[in-house]
């Protein structure tokens, strides 16, 4: 069986321009993942009180970005009032940026195979900007992930997985329901 899989993989790797195709596929996956994350930041900010409390101390207009080195994709968001607003793709003058060193590292995290703290521990990700801002962003990101990922992934990516109340689970359902329209709005 293993030999069959290896032979199959070898055939796939033999496809002309396979490295380019693989790289483009990873880029596309991360592009969609980051767009979903951006939408989740907006939708969670609208509905989740603990998220609003977490960003209450942030200065208005603080921009944060998440992306992949060296060529993207990237997303930039901004805090306004008690909301976070998606500004668009690219690095748009962020105050703090989470960066993955390469596409492979980004894929590991965005597919839920690796936690962001493990990615940092394995030197796969880095921060540009104020470390205090980065820690605040990390806590906000953890809340977004709580409402974005299913429980099975949360167990894998959190040091101590959060336990959601019934009300929080209902909110999570509402966030899920709002994500697709939000993604469509992004594309339009």
């Amino acid at each position, binding site marked *: 069986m293993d030999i069959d899989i290896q032979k199959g993989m070898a055939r796939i790797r033999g496809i002309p321009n396979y490295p380019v195709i693989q790289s483009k596929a990873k880029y596309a996956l991360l592009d969609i993942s980051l767009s979903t994350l951006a939408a989740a930041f907006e939708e969670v900010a609208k509905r989740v009180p603990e998220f609003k409390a977490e960003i209450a101390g942030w200065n208005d207009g603080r921009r944060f970005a998440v992306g992949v080195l060296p060529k993207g994709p990237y997303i930039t968001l901004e805090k306004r009032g008690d909301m976070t607003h998606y500004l668009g793709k690219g690095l748009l003058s962020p105050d703090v940026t989470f960066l993955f060193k390469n596409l492979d590292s980004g894929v590991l995290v965005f597919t839920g195979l690796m936690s962001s703290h493990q990615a940092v*521990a*394995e030197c796969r990700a*880095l921060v540009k900007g104020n*470390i*205090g801002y*980065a820690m*605040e962003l990390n806590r906000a990101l953890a809340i977004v992930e709580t409402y974005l990922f299913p429980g099975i992934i949360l167990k894998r990516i*959190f040091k101590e997985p959060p336990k959601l109340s019934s009300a929080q689970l209902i909110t999570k359902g509402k966030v899920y329901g709002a994500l697709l329209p939000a993604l469509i709005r992004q594309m339009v």
Partner: protein
Amino acid sequence: MIPNYYQFYCPVKILSGHQAVSNIPFEMELLGCKKAMLVTDKGVVDAGLIDIVKTAFADSDREIGYIFDEVPQDSSNRIVNKLAKLFVKEKCDCFLAVGGGSSMDTAKGANVVVSEGSDDLLKLQGVENITKDLKPMIAIPTTAGTGSEVTKAAVVYNEEENVKMAFLSDKLYPDVAVIDPRMTLSLPPKMTAATGMDALTHAIEAYTCLQKNPIDDVFAKVAIDLIRRYLVRATEDGKDKEARIGMANAALLAGIAFSNSNVGMVHSLAHASGSVCHVPHGVANAILLPWVLEYNLDEVPEYIAEISGALGSSVEYLEPRDQGQVTISLVRNLLTRLNQVSGLPTRLSDAGVTEDDLPAIAQAAINDGAHTYNPRDLTYDVALETLKKAF
């Protein structure tokens, strides 16, 4: 345990032992440098340690271009920017940092500002944000704790925001670390104890936190073993040269370990205690270390248990959790012993912290990056609870 992935890097040339300082001019020649900016503090000058360095230059064609002795207990962005301007004005071509972590981190910070052509260090904080090659730097520690002579880290106090900023970059490693026993002989007992406990915290956090790896484990365990042998001796008798060089090497080894494996929650709480209440870093680490080990024990009992031997445990090896408790007891015993011989505080309340300060320290701690590598989460509630226990 073999991690899924790890990195290790330490490009520092180490000179350790009898009259090591005498080799500095030769090392400057190898580095292509002629005129050093010596960075230190007034305490080091008053102790006569700069005279030892000056003597080394007496028969050399290399020179000390300027002696900057204004480094405070906690290096600040203002001092760093001032030093950077002086370095350019005096046409120096390398940094010679003589002192504790503050002097070395000030030199590192100024080196970044000079080499990046920036006017302000604040613009360059974060991880791996330094792109230009830095000027050569030689580090001569006069304490045995910080390990900054072999680390890629610099911690600088941000006066505007009242927080300690961390800079992490492979470019921040000094070129040469000079460990000369003469340079730590005058360190007072309490500071010897505090800086030694800082080194112990570096080694234990490197060994027990998320970035641990087999190479750093070796450095960390040997560092712990040397600290067990020599810390109390060096504190009791500052003129004990063997104990002094042993502790200097322990601090260096722990520095190599944590530069690659990083630290954890003890450091987040200690940085915050320093920012809010100006508790000396080593003192805060010493007080908080056993409480954080207790908190982490449920998550990493094996790692905490494994260091009991280096700390001198003679107990037959128990189940990991019980053996971990042995480790914590040994750390507490060491702290108590150091309190007896040097007056090192064992509670935050004895270190100038009031109960009203604890919420502000907890808030600052959760915004400190070090706990990213801690095996368990550091939330505000956990930070406050731990601080209350240590109070």
